[in-house]
């Protein structure tokens, strides 16, 4: 029996999918590697694609004293970075302006650049802005 383990499994992965010839057997460590790296087997493409989308979603929260132009400024920065707003809610909680945006950042230059731009905008308009991966909130509230 020829073994595919965590040591050599990467050599069998092409374009995010596993290609194995007859005569090879997957050891437990290789299966673990495939799961961790979202490598798909036949028929699992859609699930892997869905996971990739979820990984690109961030939750942006904006908090502070209400003033004109907050939504325009924050949304403007997201648009400038080619982020796509997929959900937006806004309210006044105990006198504090609170806004939550869900943004697909797959078009942006990545998490760090997005955060840098939004933090700068937050300073300019005096609002507290945080950017967090959506997946952690989803893990907390969805099975």
């Amino acid at each position, binding site marked *: 029996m020829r073994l595919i383990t965590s040591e050599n499994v990467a050599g069998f992965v092409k374009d995010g999918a596993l290609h194995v010839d007859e005569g090879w057997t997957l050891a437990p460590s290789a299966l673990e590697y495939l799961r*961790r790296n979202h490598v798909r087997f036949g028929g699992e493409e859609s699930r892997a694609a869905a996971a990739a989308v979820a990984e690109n979603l961030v939750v942006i929260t904006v908090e502070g004293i209400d003033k004109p132009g907050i939504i325009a400024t924050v949304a403007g920065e997201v648009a400038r970075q080619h982020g796509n707003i997929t*959900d937006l*809610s806004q309210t006044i909680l105990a006198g504090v302006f*609170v806004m*939550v945006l869900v943004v697909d950042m797959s078009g942006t230059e990545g998490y760090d650049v997005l955060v840098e731009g939004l933090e700068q905008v937050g300073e300019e308009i005096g609002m507290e802005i945080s950017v967090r991966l959506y997946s*952690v909130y989803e893990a907390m509230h*969805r099975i």
Partner: protein
Amino acid sequence: MARGPLGMDEILESVGMVGRDHLDIRTVTLGINLRGCRTPDDVVRRVTATAGNLIGITDAIATETGIPIVNRRIAVTPIAWVAERGERELLLDLARALDGTAAEVGVDFIGGFSAMVEKHASRIDEELMAALPYAFAETERVCGSVNIATTGAGINMDAVNFMGEVIKETAAQTADQSAIGCAKLVVFANAVPDNPFMAGAFHGFGEGDAAISVGISGPGVVANALRRLPPGAPMQDLAEEIKRTVFKITRVGEHVGREVSRRLGVAFGVVDISLAPTSTPGDSVAEILELIGVERVGLPGSTVALAMLNDAVKKGGAMATSRAGGLSGAFIPVSEDANFASAAADGHLVLEKLEAMTAVCSVGLDMIALPGDTSAHTIAAIIADEAAIGIINNKTTACRLVPVPGAVPGEWVDWGGLLGRAPVMDVRNRPTVGVVQRAGHMPPPLRALGN
């Protein structure tokens, strides 16, 4: 559970759990298998190769998720299984190697200077146990443990006897730091191989080459959930609320753990569903018991409150992850929980009540300062009593007892940082204890005829 996209209320609830209620990941612990490491240099190479990116990766994940990761630790294969020979100097070299490599990769504690001696101690086990006081005196980050009993093997009373002496010697060797060495030494019954929490973490048999395990926490989140219930709500409503809350905390822990595991390229181990307090205000298990309706922890009612809490924590957590493990329950370390420490100082909490409480919760007599003149026999007898609770009830129990040289009951001892501070507790001390002197072996308990 709702489906579909998250609502604003759900997102704001999560934000509040972190910002207001101190929700955090208490520890991300990387277990590393040291089999085949023949020299201290081999150990250093193995640990740095596996753990080199641990701090960078966990820092990035904490930023991106907004969930603080308080501690990063390493657990290794029990050194008594790794050491080739039992010479004191070789064992101390291994301890120094662990200490140095922990500092290099940036973790504050490395656990696994350990031996499993529940039935018999090998020569190397014995030498390791005897080396513990000097290993703790010479190193800063090394933690160790000795398993002296299991439900299957019974209690190794010879080892219990010996550990009484080892703890006294550890206290003497680290007397200038209020016996801090004893805070890094856990004596277990039914030790688990995948516990991510220090000081008792080690990478046990069957755990693979390396694994990431996560210890969750959040006593503050649970306390605030209980505060939102109507006053006088019946016990089952409290249990329900705790389950719901711990479910969410556990989901976060599993998510973060799996992400660390993926980025580090090692297997995912377990989520330890524990409520681990710290001395930060609002991060107390005792406070939850007081909210349940015990005026001060240690008074009558404390055991039932803790039993309900512990059970509800496990139920909520077990629903949230199929990778629950480790110790999973509520911790009651006296020095690490400000409300436990103050209840002990005010005389509401005594050692015997703590012992009773350990029968219904995770772990055992943890971080307890004892008078400096407590005898080795008395310490061994306390360990044996605690082990008996563990093996009869099929659960892990442990002792982390600190006889502080020169200290008297009521005096406060401060170990600083996470280890916290505690008053020296009164103990019914005897110079010799017959049951300990007998030594030998307590046979394992019967597991049939359970009706």
